[in-house]
């Protein structure tokens, strides 16, 4: 039985100082986002525009996709379609084999994480070098990223230093981020320069022009894409937007929401391959068309992968991305992943107090917390919930539909707490682990009311 969020979170929290550090670091990113948002009087209007553009996109997606494919193809981009992760990986593998490619660099693409591309290629003896600094760090450590924008946020500089000492022969114990980044720069520069294939993600694809945009701070996507003779860009089909002018809305929202910057250092707009370069684009479904058909959950496809919801989520900050056991963690992951595999991800919508903060920070106004609640209903209806829980809920239903029984249970429960506290205050009572139980009054409110008000 796969380990669930609650157990993984408990392990994470066991190191309380580290949990505090993780929580404060991510809260700081949330604060930077607030500052950036405050700097634009039209912030809420921008969110509304972003939301409406994405609503329009989803409602006209089949036409936009055809328009996009037509334009991209006319511009010399080879467009491929993949129904699922397996097909996506095979398409890429085929291109690699056709050219006899050995040296591959990849910039950040959560889609390739979702499809487990690196593992797939590794099994075929093909090495992929992740070039986003955070991704490279976790790649060395053989870990998945814990955050879709800040992949190594769960690591301290001492951890990175140890990893680089092992893999890049940096000075042992030298934790200076400047020094470590320089080492990565030199190491990856060689990889870029000799790369034969560059795989990138896609932040936005434009139906009107057939072009796509890739945003980075490091410049790693471009270092690979403008060097390698072959460039493959991978995208979920929901990355589409109708017009180039709409990029202004999304680029203004994206970096501010993600890290509090007004824009990423590089916003690269690709339209055509270089002369004597092959450019491919893989459009992937992998459950997205199914999600599109779910009326309550299709809005989750508006996501622009900014991770603002991660940074604001009090649960994510205290449990870390690995507790979500999926490529995309956090609140948005919890409404996307049950669609991919409801059984494996049945725990995720419950890893939340439904506080609603995520919905408030989402730049495209996805009603995340409402979808979390709705997923709970679906998961229970499908039977992916513990029998013990079902039984206790049936008990609750009985009690709460019968006033007399409710009062009897209440009075009895309080009586037991009063007379035999050890029956409640023990190891079997999860509440009692770290909290005192509330005191049990002799009279309920209703008892008091009858004695003091009802004539």
């Amino acid at each position, binding site marked *: 039985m796969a380990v669930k969020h609650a157990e993984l979170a408990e392990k994470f929290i066991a190191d309380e100082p580290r949990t505090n550090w993780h929580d404060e670091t991510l809260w700081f*990113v949330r604060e930077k986002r607030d500052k950036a948002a405050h700097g634009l*009087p*039209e912030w809420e209007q921008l969110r509304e*525009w972003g939301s*409406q*553009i994405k*609503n*329009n996109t989803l*409602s*006209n*997606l089949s036409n936009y996709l055809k328009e996009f494919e037509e334009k991209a193809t006319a511009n010399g981009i080879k467009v491929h*379609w*993949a*129904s699922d992760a397996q*097909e996506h990986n095979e398409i890429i593998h085929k291109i690699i084999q056709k050219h006899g490619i050995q040296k591959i660099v990849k910039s950040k693409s959560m889609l390739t994480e979702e499809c487990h591309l690196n593992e797939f290629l590794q099994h075929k003896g093909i090495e992929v070098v992740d070039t*986003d*600094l955070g991704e490279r*760090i976790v790649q060395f450590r053989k870990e998945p990223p814990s955050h879709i924008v800040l992949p190594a*946020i769960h690591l301290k*500089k001492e951890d*990175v230093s140890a990893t680089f000492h092992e893999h890049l022969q940096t000075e042992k114990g030298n934790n200076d*981020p*400047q020094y470590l*980044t320089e080492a990565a*720069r030199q190491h990856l*520069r060689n990889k*870029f*320069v*000799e790369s034969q294939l560059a795989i990138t993600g896609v932040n936005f694809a*434009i139906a*009107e022009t*057939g072009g796509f945009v890739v945003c980075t*701070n*490091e*410049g*790693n996507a*471009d*270092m690979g894409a*403008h*060097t390698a003779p072959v460039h493959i860009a991978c995208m979920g089909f929901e990355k589409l937007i109708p017009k180039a*002018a*709409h*990029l*202004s*809305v999304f*680029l*203004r929202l994206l970096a501010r929401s993600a890290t509090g910057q007004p*824009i990423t*250092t*590089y*916003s*690269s*707009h690709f*339209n*055509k391959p*270089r002369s004597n370069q092959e450019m491919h684009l893989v459009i992937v479904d992998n459950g997205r068309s*199914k999600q599109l*058909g779910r*009326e309550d959950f*299709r809005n989750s496809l508006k996501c622009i992968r900014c991770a603002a919801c991660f940074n604001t989520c009090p649960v994510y900050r205290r449990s870390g991305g690995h507790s979500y056991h999926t490529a995309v963690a956090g609140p948005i992951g919890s409404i996307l992943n049950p669609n991919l595999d409801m059984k494996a991800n049945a725990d995720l919508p419950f890893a939340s107090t439904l506080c609603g903060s995520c919905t408030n920070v989402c730049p495209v106004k996805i009603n995340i917390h409402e979808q979390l609640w709705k997923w709970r209903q679906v998961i229970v209806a499908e039977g992916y919930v513990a029998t013990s829980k079902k039984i206790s809920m049936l008990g609750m239903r009985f009690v709460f539909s019968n006033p007399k029984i409710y009062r009897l249970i209440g009075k009895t429960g309080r009586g037991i707490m009063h007379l035999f506290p050890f029956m409640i205050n023990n190891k079997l009572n999860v509440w009692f682990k770290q909290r005192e139980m509330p005191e049990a009054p002799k009279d309920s409110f209703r008892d008091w009311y009858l004695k003091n008000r009802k004539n």
Partner: protein
Amino acid sequence: MSARENILKAIAMNQPKLAELPVIDIGSTIHYEDSYAQFRTVLESIGGKVELISDLTVLKDQLISDRLNGKFVVNTIETLGEVDQKAAFLSAFELEKVEKGYVQGTVGVAENGAVWIYESQMINRLVPFICQHLILVIEKKNIVDNLHQAYEKIDVSKEGFGVFIAGPSKTADIEQSLVIGAHGARSATIYVIE
């Protein structure tokens, strides 16, 4: 049926009722009293440098001096001096050694310090990314308030490639410590011609 047909069919079947596109009122977006000042402030806060110049003399001299000193530089700006057309044919191995890239930009964006560069202004797509130090040149009158106005002034699909570059490359992936100079340029200086 191919994957393409299956996917498009599923999408057509599942997509919701048509929702209208919003009307983007650019007039309601942020406007700066002094867009140059804002451009400069933002760029300096993201590790870039801005120099206001009345004409290209100082840059021309710098380029000449760089070349005399044997620095490997690539110049793409006609008005600055000899354009290094050969950069179009250099391999990545060779371009990796470029110390400085002098690149012409089209517009500057005050709200975020970004400069738009068309492929034709780069000679080689790699130039603005692979050089150790980037020098961008724009005209002050081409600094707009925000991205909405920028997209009105440029045509991002006109050429095979184009990019907004805002300052030097950077990363904060190591414990959120900001390090300037990741994989792209270690420094970016924007010369604004009055």
